[in-house]
């Protein structure tokens, strides 16, 4: 039987480094994925994931255990990504991430350049809020309620945002149609 997150957290807060390591290994990938989808760049996502991991030992003590650990962890990830975006904006490096197509180029056969371009345009057309929501709901396949909890908004607001996303995508499709 796999040890639960909550048990690992409890052990980690008592100073058990191994438990802490297990916890991170278990969740590193989802931290990275969310970060990538919000930031749109691999470098940023890796930096962000590292930052989140490094900040966890201190933060762990404030984790009262009342929320689900993953919810709490994803809140931290989202918050960290917001900070990073703000720092980058302050440094006028907005062109990074989803702003730049080249960063995303991959040679995986699964993805055509057209799809990549479409994705980049779509992610760019969205505000930060919508991107975060998409990263959680579509990227991590969370329910609207779970995503709402992490983002600190109501379930209804998440649903509303997702309908905005749909609207954005439809607008894109319409514009594409007009260009043809």
């Amino acid at each position, binding site marked *: 039987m796999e040890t639960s997150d909550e048990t690992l957290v409890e052990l980690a807060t008592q100073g058990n*480094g191994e438990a*802490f390591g297990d916890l991170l290994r278990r969740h590193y*990938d989802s931290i990275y994925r969310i970060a*990538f989808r919000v930031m749109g760049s691999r470098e940023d996502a890796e930096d962000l994931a590292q930052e989140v991991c490094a900040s966890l030992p201190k933060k762990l003590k404030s984790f009262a255990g*009342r929320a689900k650990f993953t919810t709490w962890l994803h809140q931290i990830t989202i918050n960290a990504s917001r900070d990073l975006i703000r720092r980058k904006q302050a440094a006028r490096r907005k062109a990074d991430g989803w702003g730049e197509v080249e960063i995303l180029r991959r040679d995986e056969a699964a993805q055509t350049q057209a799809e990549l371009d479409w994705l980049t345009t779509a992610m760019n057309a969205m505000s930060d809020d919508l991107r975060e929501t998409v990263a959680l709901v579509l*990227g991590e396949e969370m329910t609207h309620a779970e995503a709402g*909890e992490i983002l*600190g908004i109501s379930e209804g607001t998440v649903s*509303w945002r997702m309908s905005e996303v749909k609207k954005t995508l439809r607008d894109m499709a319409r514009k594409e149609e007009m260009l043809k």
Partner: protein
Amino acid sequence: MSDELDKLKQAMQNATPPPSDDARDRALRVAAEEFEKTFQGSPETVRPTSQNAPSGGFMRGAVSMFRRLTTREALLTTASVATVVVAVVVTQDFNSLPEDNHGKIIVGEFADTKVGATLQSPQTSTIRQDATSQIVINETAPAAQPLDDGFATGAATSIAGNEVVQQQAPVLDALDVTDQASSSPNTPLVDGRLRTESDGDDEIGVLSFVAPAAPIVMSEESEAVTTERRANVTAPTTSQGIVADMAATAEITIIQPAEPVPAIEANTELFPEADINPLKVASEEPVSTFSIDVDTASYGIVRSSLMNGQLPPRDAVRTEELINYFPYDYPLPAEGEAPFSTSVTVMDTPWNADTKLLHIGIQGFDIAVEDRPPVNLVFLIDTSGSMNDANKLPLLINSFRLMLANLQPEDQVAIVTYAGSAGMALEPTPASDSAKILASLQNLSAGGSTAGQAGLQQAYALAEQMADDGDISRVILATDGDFNVGISDPEKLQSFVEDKRDSGVYLSVLGFGRGNYNDTIMQTLAQNGNGTAAYIDTLAEAQKVLVDQIGGALFTIAQDVKIQIEFNPAEIAEYRLIGYETRALNREDFNNDAVDAGEIGAGHSVTAIYEITPVGSPAVSVDDLRYTQTDAQPASSENGEYAFLKLRYKNPGEDRSILLTTPVFADSDAGLQSEANFAAAVAGFAQLLRDDDRIRGWDIADAQALAQQNMGADPFGYRAELITLMRLADSLK
């Protein structure tokens, strides 16, 4: 999920490169070092398993650590509950009484909290009309940082500490109904956000109340309430356009003490708007589709208006509900066939010699009270301040007492009340224990605002809980419909009850009172929640709905009943459906079993009337087109057929519909001339009340004469009452 979202999801997954092992190792190493520093000198423990996990000590550490935290997350988490304190001073001005009391307040700065508003406004608080309206927002929140990062709040919401929230409990209630519902002990609908209960400073997570139309309730003084007003607060657009949009309307209800204010009741009634069904050209649009409707609420509203010496608002008159208010002497269905009979009659139009009426009468089978299966009833009773009228809560209590006497001992009754919050007033109790139920009914009293959606949630939850072994459960909502806390947008309520519809719980909506009656919401609920709506204005009406026709009210015999008629353009030039404007369906909806439609209860009769213009009649009003051949030939050789009637229904609880068909001929006659003529008289009367110009040349006196010739047995005097109403309306016109 929609195609677009699927595509986005797929593209996103494809685009995400797997994390590099290097990066992962580096992160884990850094974290481990950080961990060592933080937990220096900690004892070694054995590798954890779920069996040997030690416990204790964690909370203490967490709490003390939390106090020392100064990170941004911590600040946000302490400020995890947002609230707004709004103080409104209304300067009375009795000189004007505007009709519209929905105003707008533009808020300038809103990263702040406490709203102190000075509204100089007339009696009805119409902010729009007063140039001096002003709303001031101050900061009270301990949150040190402006919330500009998407945890953003709306105009009327912002962050405050828990201390504030504790003092402002009613405000918290009002702000987030979901939380309120989930914190209620009787509600299993917990959505995981119980943490908003104000229970300490060690909360994790951030909640903001960026809900569309977040309502705020202010209560000055006590429960002494006579008038309620509303205003809309509009947020300015910010860089976070989304957030601003979402917060665009916050509803403020100002509840005032009764005493110093002369009670001039602002009329805030809302009725669904629907244009009268237009005339259709059979060759262009031969198919007409609609859902049946057995609601009778509109008749009650019309009656209450006329009895008060006023003509009813146009949109309050729904022709089909007036027609269907009356029981008709249609033949009962034959044993072992469809649960209802269908009779078709073609007859002359009373108000136009050149057209015909196609009358469709549907009669559901009746079931003796003692034969019907036991039901679980949840009375959901609105006990908000606005219900505190003689013709509301007291009438409601008496109505339910009437009904109680007609329940079977094995029926179960529970009562949920809602005002500012929802609560269970009576646990599920067998109907045989009438003393207990009566006592609980007598104890109801009105006060506070109206968290209708929270009440609905709880009532549905309770109904689902009561329904074991396939029992029928029904929520009976009694309200004036003036939902002002939580979801009050008809569209949102609609999707809420639509979700609940699938749980098999039926809904009956009983409307009470006038002045702030929200017919739109009542219709929305009844039409989308597998339910019916009736309007109770007198105890006699309660007797009709809850006693005489209790079978219909409690026992559904067919659901999602849809009617589709295809007219034969070779015979029929034009047609129009009289009434059913709010019940129109798309042509393709007819065969789509997922599309909801009306229910028929035991003993209900439903009538639909088309006015049809045969080809060649002088009444044909639309000329043929010059360039398009509209002279359609019928596809089949069924000449002489006027139309083809199709009906779909589902047996209660089933997913698949059953199709019934009947051809209509020029001489179709079910032998119901008198009943059909009475229905035509009601239809004519309703159209006259709506000022429908298709019935010019006829007046209320004509309708009255026609009705009087076709009174039938009328054992309960319903038709006689209509004559009285017609005479009143004639004098008032």
